[in-house]
């Protein structure tokens, strides 16, 4: 990114931000799509921050031992799905609160990832390589800015697929009905608890894959400070996107751009407000939440059974 900004002058800034936005939005996109499915079924998984860390750790470890970054991505997804399954089952117990269980998973996932990842801090595992979409340009700056990571493309495909799946498929209908009204779902013969568990497993899988992006693409190594709240911001992002997969895509890009501002300015030599710019994604998330929600009325598009938006 430094070279981009140096040779293109001030024009380098928007390009650097775009490249940074695509890169930084990828974990948001994957986690928010997963959480979108979970929330549409009427449950909330606040523990995705922990799942993200476990995914990052497991993905890095698997990539190191198998020598294949893609096997790492798969392993991260499987670990995430397993945590999602546990979350889904525990929340199906009577009197167990999904928000509280989510908080406990945040803690447990982070702790486990730190513990098991202790030996992964030093070695360098194979990472995911990017796809050069800038081949048409002569400018090396544009070429380097258009190095798109494959997981982002996967996220776009998934967002479109989910959009149609919710509208047109039996599975999509089932998840929506279970999320909107338990009674209606029972009347239609859908089983509520298994549907919610499956939706949470799927959400966990995608959150795990989102975590593997952090350790296998950018920053591309395992460390304990890898995630800075992306898991929890993605939960807020789903509310902003009003539970629409395609809106999750745009919202993720917006969040990614906010996250890319700090490093982009830093690359241009503006370091004084660096720590404040780092807080920008959190401020943006909160402002967006304030603008999207309203007192005493349901947010349009919100699943009826979701405890998060029920007052």
């Amino acid at each position: 990114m430094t070279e981009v900004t140096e040779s293109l002058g001030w024009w380098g800034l928007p390009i650097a931000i775009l490249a940074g936005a695509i890169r930084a939005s990828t974990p948001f996109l994957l986690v928010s799509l997963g959480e979108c499915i979970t929330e549409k079924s009427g449950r909330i998984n606040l523990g995705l921050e922990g799942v993200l860390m476990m995914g990052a750790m497991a993905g890095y470890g698997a990539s190191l031992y198998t020598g294949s970054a893609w096997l790492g991505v798969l392993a991260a997804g499987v670990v995430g799905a397993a945590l999602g399954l546990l979350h889904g089952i525990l929340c199906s117990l009577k009197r167990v609160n999904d928000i509280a269980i989510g908080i406990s998973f945040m803690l447990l996932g982070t702790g486990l990832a730190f513990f098991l990842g202790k030996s992964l801090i030093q070695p360098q595992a194979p990472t995911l390589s990017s796809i050069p979409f800038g081949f048409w340009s002569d400018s090396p700056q544009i070429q380097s800015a258009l190095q798109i990571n494959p997981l982002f493309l996967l996220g776009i495909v998934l967002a479109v697929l989910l959009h149609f799946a919710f509208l047109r498929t039996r599975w999509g209908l089932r998840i929506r009905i279970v999320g909107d009204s338990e009674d209606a779902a029972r009347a239609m013969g859908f089983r509520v608890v298994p549907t919610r568990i499956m939706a949470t497993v799927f959400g966990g899988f995608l959150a795990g894959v989102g975590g593997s992006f952090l350790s296998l693409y950018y920053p591309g190594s395992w460390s304990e400070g890898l995630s800075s709240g992306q898991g929890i911001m993605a939960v807020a992002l789903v509310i902003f996107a009003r539970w629409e997969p395609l809106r999750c895509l745009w919202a993720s890009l917006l969040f990614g751009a906010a996250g890319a501002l700090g490093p982009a300015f830093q690359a241009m030599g503006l370091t004084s407000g660096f720590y404040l710019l780092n807080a920008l994604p959190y401020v943006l998330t909160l402002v967006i939440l304030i603008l999207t929600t309203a007192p005493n009325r349901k947010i349009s598009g919100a699943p009826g059974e979701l405890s998060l938006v029920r007052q």
Partner: protein
Amino acid sequence: MYAGIKRFLLPIAEPVLVPTGAVLVAMLLFAGFIALVGQSPPEVFWILYQGGFGSSFSLQNTLVLASPLILTGLAVAIPAQAGMVIIGGEGALAVGALLAAVAGYALHDTAPFIVQLGMLTVGALTGALWFGLSGWLRNYRGVNETISSLLLSYMGIALLNYCIQGPLRDPASTNNPSTRPIGDANMIGNIPGLDVHYGLIIGIVCALIAWFVLKFTTIGLALRAVGGNPRAAQMAGLRVNIWVVGAAAMGGAAAGLSGAIEVAAVHGDANSAIVAGYGFTGILVAFIARQNPLAVIPVAILFGGIDAAGSLLQRRLDMPDATVIVFQGILFVVILASDTFLGRFRFFKPGAASEPKPGTAGAKS
């Protein structure tokens, strides 16, 4: 006579026995985890005990760590009475510590008592403002308080880091950026005869006051009414908005106070080491204490002990420092899951209907 004892003991027995069983299950799971990674579970548990409670030295160390945990536990438990799940204690602690350090430096030429009182007041007020915002947003904008408090927590930590690296940095602090020191003479001292600072007493007194107010005054009754059913509380003439924002602010005051105490009694200035995870462990403390301010005290001491034992585990067995987080995480999950058994055993019911617990009655999927 026997029937009388049974009537008195059985209702208490369930909320005590079910979590105790959960702790045993969690210990078994943790033992399994320890065995899986190739260590000896009995040895790990023995070191946990030794490091936390085994000697007067480790016990005093435990109490020093427990003192902020009591306050960060209250930061979760007090808003929970009004039905809120606020978990941003770490950030409120950070901004409380930051502004308390600024106040301490500004007052450092006056008497130590004034410096300390000023710091504690400023810390508590800052924390109250930080959490109060979450409560306000929940009531006036319908923003989920759990998420907003967590976001505000990240912002508070970023603000602390910005200020100690930039505008509030002491030019003399080169290696470890920090604010200007409040001065050794102004530090809060130790309890006579112990190596534990007065912050512990402040924490315990706060917990006792919170317990008394919630249990024996109309304030507690009003809060429970607001937490149990806001609409009914409104009908009964309570101004729900004020109660919700107030409960959040009181929780924030506790977290901000813990930050101020960390500066005034331990660090002497605000630096990045202030953010040590007390806010997050406080969530655990409050949930395991079932949001009861009185129960927060022993649970905080227990978790202070587990935290204190972490370094011994690292030294003796070369285990990662995250070992204790894993143990705490397992404990947390199992205890929350054990809620499902409450009210299911007929044995515990001497006929009277059980009272719903605050916090668990709020949001339910």
